[in-house]
C-alpha cells in the first residue's frame, strides 16, 4: 500500500520516463477509484461490527504506520471460519508457540534468512558490538496499548536484571565475560543493544525469544505485568495475590501472569490471542487480535481466519484418529508417521489432503556412540576408535531401515545439513560411510583384534565378552524398530547387541550419569549449529551421549570431567568463532563442522529428510494458502513459519 501511494504522488511526469513507475501509477489510479469508496485497509466483518458499534477504533488507527505485509502462498483470501487443531495438554504449550510464532524477528518460509516481524529493521555497528533495532511506530498490543521500546526495556529491567527471575545471565544476551549486555532506548521506537564482543548471531537469537518452552518472551506488556512485580507494583497486593493463588512466591505469580498460554488476560502481539481459556483447558480457543500489525498485499488486515480451537486429547492415537475422521482442519504436530498410509487412504472421504514437510536436514534416527564410556574402559576405548565406528556405519543396512521403519520416505545420509542449505558439506560427506558393506566391516573388526568366539560372536581384544547396548526411547515413531534392525545387522557382524527400550526420564537420567553405550536420537539441529542447544556441541544439555564427561569439563572449567579430544575441542572452537564473524565465514565454519561430523561419526546417520517430526500434515481440503513445502524445524516454529495468518477457507 505504502509503495503504491508513493508512486501515485510522484505524478504523471515520471511515469513516462520509467515504465515500472508508470505501471505503479496506473495501479494506484485503479486503486484510487476503490479507495474513494472504501478505506485503504480492510478488516474482518466481526471487527467492522465492533467498529460500527463504537467498541473498537477504526482499522487505520489499530494498524501501525507501516504494517508488515505478508505475501500469501497462493493468493488473497477471504475472512472467516475456525481452524480446529488438537493438543495434548499443558505440556503441549509449544503447540501454541509454534502456531503463533510471535517473535521480534522471524525466519522466512524456506528457513534461509531472517525477515522483519515486530522489528521492522535492524543493523549492527561496524564492529558487530552494537545492534540497533527499529520498532513500528503506531503498533499496538492486543488491548490497544501502544507498543514501544518499553516492551523490550521492561523485559530487560524487570526480568533480566532481576536475580530472582533470572539467577544467571542467559548466554544469548551475555557479554563475553558473562555479564548482562547493555540495552537502552534511543527513542520510543528504537532500541540499542551493546555487547563487549562482536556478536553476529544476535538477530537469530531474537527469533527464538518468543516465549517458547513456557519462558517469558523478550517483548513483554509492562503496562499490564508491572502490577505483579514488586519493583513496580504494590507489595501487599502482590502478597495477597500470591497466597490467593496458592503459590509460594511472587516469581511464580509473575511467570503465570506473563506466560500467555497460562493467562488469557495477558496482552499479546500475535495474530490470534487466547480467548477466555488456557492451555490447561479442554478446549483452548484463540480469537483474532484486532490490533495485529500485518496486512496482505491488498491491504486486508490479517489473519483471515476468525478463530483457532485446540482440542485436548489425552492420547496421541485418539488425536490421530480424529484427524483420520476429518475432525481437525490443520494438524501437523502429533500426527504419527506410521499413520501416514491410513491418513492417505481416508483423505478423500474425510475431506482433507495430506502433505509432507521433510525435516530440516540432519538425521531422523542417528546411532550416537558414547566417546567417553568409563564403566568398562576396554569397551570405552573401542567405542572411541574411529575405525570401529566406520565398521559399525558400513555394517548397517540403511535401505532396509528406510523401507521398514520410514515407509520408504526420506534419504539415506549422515547427520549433516540439508542439501539446499548453505551449510551442506557436499555429497561426498553426506553419503560417506553409508554404503552397506558387511565384508569390509568384518575386515575392520578383525583388524581391531575382535576375535570371534566358538559361538561366532566377537570378544574384546583381551578376550572379555563384548556386549553392546542401544538405549532407545519410543519418543518419535519408529526408533525402537530402527534399533532392532541395527542390532540384528550388528549381530551378523558378530557383535552382541541388546536393545533397551527405556522410558524417557530413565534414559535421560542414565545419559547424564554417563551409563549409556549407544543411543538412538535424532540430529535436528544441523541447520542451527551455533545457537540454542546444538546436538553436536558437547556443552549442550540435554543433547546426546557422545561426550557427557566433557560437558562437565567445560561447565567446571576443566576441574572435573574429562578433557575433550582435539576433534571434540575443535567443535567448540568452531561454534565460538562463528558467533563473532560475518555470514561468509560462518558458512565456512559450518561446512567444516559438517565435514567433521561425517568424518568422526559420533552420531552414525541412518535416514534423514523424512516427515518424521510433525511433517505429516493433515489439511482441510478447503483450507488455502498452506504451502506444499516449508522448512520444518523447532527453531523455525513450524507451522508458524508457513504464515498461518494467511490461511483461509475457500
Amino acid at each position, binding site marked *: 500500500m505504502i509503495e503504491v501511494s508513493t508512486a501515485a504522488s510522484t505524478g504523471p511526469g515520471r511515469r513516462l520516463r520509467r515504465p515500472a513507475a508508470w505501471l505503479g501509477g496506473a495501479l494506484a489510479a485503479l486503486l484510487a477509484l476503490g479507495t474513494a469508496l472504501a478505506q485503504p485497509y480492510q478488516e474482518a466483518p466481526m471487527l467492522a461490527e465492533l467498529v460500527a458499534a463504537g467498541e473498537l477504533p477504526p482499522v487505520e488507527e489499530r494498524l501501525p504506520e507501516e504494517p508488515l505485509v505478508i505475501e500469501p502462498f497462493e493468493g488473497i483470501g477471504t475472512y472467516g471460519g475456525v481452524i*480446529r487443531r488438537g493438543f495434548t*495438554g*499443558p*505440556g503441549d504449550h*509449544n503447540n501454541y508457540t509454534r502456531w503463533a510464532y510471535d517473535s521480534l524477528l522471524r525466519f522466512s518460509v524456506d528457513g534461509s534468512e531472517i525477515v522483519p516481524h515486530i522489528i521492522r529493521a535492524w543493523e549492527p555497528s561496524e564492529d558487530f558490538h552494537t545492534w540497533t533495532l527499529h520498532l513500528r511506530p503506531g503498533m499496538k498490543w492486543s488491548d490497544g496499548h501502544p507498543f514501544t521500546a518499553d516492551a523490550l526495556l521492561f523485559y530487560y529491567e524487570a526480568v533480566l536484571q532481576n536475580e530472582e*527471575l*533470572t*539467577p*544467571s*545471565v*542467559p*548466554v544469548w544476551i551475555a557479554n563475553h565475560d558473562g555479564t548482562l549486555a547493555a540495552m537502552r532506548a534511543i527513542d520510543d521506537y528504537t532500541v540499542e543493544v551493546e555487547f563487549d564482543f562482536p556478536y553476529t548471531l544476535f538477530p537469530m537469537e531474537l527469533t527464538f525469544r518468543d516465549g*517458547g*518452552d513456557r*519462558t517469558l518472551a523478550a517483548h513483554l506488556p509492562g503496562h499490564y505485568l508491572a502490577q505483579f512485580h514488586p519493583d513496580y507494583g504494590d507489595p501487599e497486593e502482590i502478597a495477597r495475590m500470591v497466597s490467593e493463588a*496458592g*503459590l*509460594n*512466591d511472587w*516469581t*511464580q505469580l509473575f511467570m*503465570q501472569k506473563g506466560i500467555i498460554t*497460562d493467562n488469557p488476560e495477558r496482552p499479546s502481539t500475535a495474530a490470534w490471542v487466547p480467548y477466555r*481459556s488456557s492451555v*490447561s*483447558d*479442554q*478446549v483452548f*480457543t484463540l480469537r483474532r487480535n484486532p490490533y495485529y500489525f500485518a496486512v496482505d498485499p491488498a491491504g486486508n488486515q490479517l489473519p483471515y481466519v476468525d478463530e483457532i*480451537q485446540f482440542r*485436548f*486429547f*489425552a*492420547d496421541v492415537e*485418539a*488425536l490421530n*484418529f*480424529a484427524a483420520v*475422521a*476429518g*475432525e481437525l482442519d490443520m494438524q501437523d504436530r502429533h500426527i504419527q508417521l506410521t499413520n501416514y498410509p491410513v491418513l492417505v487412504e481416508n483423505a478423500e*472421504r*474425510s475431506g482433507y489432503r495430506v502433505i509432507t514437510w521433510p525435516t530440516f536436514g540432519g538425521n531422523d534416527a542417528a546411532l550416537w556412540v558414547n566417546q567417553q564410556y568409563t564403566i568398562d574402559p576396554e569397551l570405552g576405548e573401542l567405542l572411541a576408535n574411529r575405525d570401529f565406528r566406520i565398521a559399525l556405519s558400513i555394517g548397517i543396512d540403511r535401505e532396509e531401515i528406510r523401507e521398514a521403519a520410514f515407509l520408504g520416505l526420506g534419504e539415506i545420509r549422515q547427520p549433516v545439513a540439508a542439501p539446499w542449505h548453505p551449510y551442506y558439506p557436499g555429497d561426498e560427506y553426506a553419503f560417506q560411510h553409508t554404503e552397506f558393506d558387511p565384508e569390509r566391516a568384518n575386515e575392520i573388526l578383525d583388524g581391531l583384534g575382535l576375535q570371534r568366539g566358538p559361538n561366532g560372536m566377537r570378544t574384546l581384544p583381551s578376550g572379555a565378552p563384548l556386549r553392546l547396548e542401544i538405549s532407545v526411547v519410543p*519418543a*518419535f515413531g519408529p526408533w525402537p524398530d530402527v534399533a532392532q534392525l541395527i542390532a540384528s545387522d550388528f549381530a551378523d557382524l558378530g557383535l552382541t547387541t541388546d536393545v533397551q527400550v527405556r*522410558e*524417557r*526420564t*530413565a*534414559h*535421560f*537420567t*542414565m545419559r547424564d550419569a554417563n551409563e549409556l553405550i549407544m543411543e538412538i536420537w535424532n540430529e*535436528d539441529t544441523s541447520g542451527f549449529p551455533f545457537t*540454542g*542447544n546444538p546436538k553436536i556441541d558437547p556443552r*549442550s*544439555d*540435554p543433547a546426546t551421549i557422545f561426550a557427557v564427561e566433557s560437558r562437565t569439563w567445560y561447565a567446571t572449567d576443566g576441574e572435573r570431567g574429562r578433557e575433550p579430544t582435539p576433534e571434540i575441542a575443535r567443535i567448540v572452537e568452531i561454534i565460538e568463532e562463528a558467533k563473532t564473524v560475518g555470514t561468509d565465514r560462518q558458512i565456512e565454519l559450518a561446512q567444516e563442522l559438517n565435514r567433521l561430523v561425517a568424518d568422526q561419526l559420533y552420531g552414525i546417520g541412518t535416514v534423514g529428510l523424512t516427515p518424521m517430526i510433525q511433517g505429516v500434515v493433515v489439511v482441510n481440503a478447503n483450507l488455502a494458502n498452506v504451502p506444499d513445502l516449508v522448512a520444518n524445524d*523447532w527453531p523455525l516454529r513450524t507451522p508458524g513459519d508457513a504464515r498461518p495468518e494467511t490461511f483461509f477457507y475457500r
Partner: protein
Amino acid sequence: MHWYILKRLAIVPLMLFLFSVIAFALIQAPPGDFLTSYIAELAQGGSSLDQAQIDALRRQYGLDRPIYEQYFLWVGSLLKGDLGISLEWRRSNAELIGERLLLTLALTTGSLIFTWLVAIPIGIVSATRQYSAVDYLFTVLNYVGLATPNFMLALVLMWVAFDRFGVSVTGLFSPEYAQAPWSWARFADLMSHIWLPMIVLGVAGTAQIARVVRANLLDELGKPYAEMARAKGLPEWKLVLKYPTRVAIAPVVSTLGWYFPQLLSGGLVVSVVMSLPTVGPLLLRALVGQDMYLAGTIILIFCVLTVIGTLVSDILLAVLDPRIRMDAA
C-alpha cells in the same frame, strides 16, 4: 451396627496416613523428578531449556528441597483442606480432579448399573433354564465378553463407528460443550456420548457377574427350602425371585468394594483410548510426568473411595441378608 460403622470409620485416618506415605514414596521411586521429565518432554518436541532456566524452575517448584520436606508441605496443606497445585497443569488439584471425578463416578456407576441390569437377569435365566439353548447361548456370549479386553472392544467399536457412520466417538462431550457450564443441553450431550464407554466398561463385568449369579442360583435352587416352597405350590418365578435370588446375588454385592477401584483404574486404558475426560488418564499422566502432588492426591482419593466402597458393600450385605450381623463378628 452403628458401633461397627464408627469403628470402621475410626481407622480411616490411620490408613490414609499410611497410604499417603506409600503413595508419595512410590511416586518418588523412579529416577528424576518432575523437571527431568518436563525437560525430556520438551526435548522430544525438539526444544530445550538452558541450565539457568532449569535452575530457576527447580527453585520455583521447590524441587531443590529434601524429599521429606516436600512430603510434609504436601500433607500439611492437605490437612488444611487444600489439595495443592499440580506442577504440570499449574492449577489447583481440586479443580482438576473435581469435574473429572464426577464424570468418572457417573461413568462407573452407570456401567455398574448396566452390568447388574443385564447380568442378573441373564444369570437367573441361565440357571433356571440350565443346559437349554438359551443357557448355551449366554454361556458362549459370556465367555466371549470375559475374554475380550475392554480396550480392544473400544477400538473395534470406534473403528466401526467411523467406518459405517464417519464419526469418531471419542470423548464424553462434543467440542462445543467440553468447556461449557452445566446445562440441560450439556447433560443431554453427555448422555449421547456416555453410553458407549459405559457398555464397553461394563461388558467384562457383565459376563463375570452373570456366571457368578448362575452358579450360586443353581446351588440354591435344589436346596430343601426351595423344594418346600415348591411343594407348597408357590409359583416358580415368585419363588425364584423371592428367596434363592437374594442369596445368589449376595456375593455380587460384596464385590462392590473392590469393584469401584477396579473400575476407576481398570477403565484407564479405555479412557485413554477413547480420550475420556475421567480421572484415570489424569493419574497416568501425573505418574509419567512425575507430577507428584497431583498423582498423590488422586491416589489418596482412590483409597478413600475403596474404603467407602468396602463399607457400603458391608452395610448392603447386612441389609440384604438378615443372617449377617456385624455386632456378632
